[in-house]
């Protein structure tokens, strides 16, 4: 029974998420929501404070470094749209979800045209996160 439990635990996947957000309060909340949705031991959250740092992390980590990338739109140095474009330019197919407090159709389209797979308006919530995780089979 103990062996089966260990095997089951080994098979339980850790979801690796790259959170790209310049505002600390949003990072703190998103991190807590991810841990709550996936389970503390089942998620690893890396954080980037702007789009340029996100691209660097993805480039250094390789194509399979992350299971999910959640990126804000408006950030210093490089915004979320450009970061998404550059990450896709690396040939990385990791699901990317755009996040913004502006949710006009033009904002949504801009993210999708840059190569994002989905968009969700801020604030991030348990329900929105569960939908995203289910959509990309990470739940």
């Amino acid at each position, binding site marked *: 029974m103990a062996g089966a439990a260990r095997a089951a635990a080994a098979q339980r996947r850790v979801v690796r998420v790259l959170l790209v957000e310049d*505002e*600390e*309060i*949003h990072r*703190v*909340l998103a991190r*807590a*929501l991810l841990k*709550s949705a996936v389970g*503390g031991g089942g998620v690893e959250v890396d954080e980037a404070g702007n789009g340029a740092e996100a691209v660097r992390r993805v480039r250094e980590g390789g194509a399979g470094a992350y299971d999910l990338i959640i990126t804000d739109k*408006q950030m210093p140095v490089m915004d979320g749209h450009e970061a998404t474009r550059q990450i896709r330019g690396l040939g990385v197919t990791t699901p990317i979800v755009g996040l913004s*407090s*502006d949710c006009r159709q033009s904002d949504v389209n801009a993210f999708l045209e840059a190569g994002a797979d989905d968009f969700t308006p*801020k*604030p991030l*919530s*348990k329900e929105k996160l569960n939908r995203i995780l289910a959509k990309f089979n990470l739940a």
Partner: protein
Amino acid sequence: MRNLRLSSHSRRAALGDRGRRAHPDEVVAVGGYLDEQFCQVEDLQDDASPNFTEEVVTLFFKDSARLISNIEQALEKYPKDFSRWDAYMQQLKGSCSSIGASRMKSECMSFRDCCGQGNPEGCMRSFQKVKREHGALRQKLEAYFQLVRQAGPAGAATRPV
């Protein structure tokens, strides 16, 4: 588990009660200062993070004070730079959304509308309202957390469903 959530009565006392009967799910929204997002923040509090809500709120006021100062300076130094004003206010609005500060968020949106209309006087008036709501929210939440601390681990009640 230390439960820092207040009973519905205590929440109404802390956040302002207009005397109406509130459905338990609406307790936090009484007075309109905070919406359901605040409950989401509270739901993230647990044994590992027993002061999570207060920490997030503290972070909000640190951020919002900085953003308000930025906007104040921008209004003075960059007259009619609606694009700049709007960008700063968008950040503040986003912060408000994160903790469910609905009244303050609403004033942020009014400011942004005035930016869109190219209405500097409207922006100035809206900004004064944003600052008033910010001050009022701070007072309300300080009172709320004071009640939470007074309630203590033994006296706290579970949040109504």
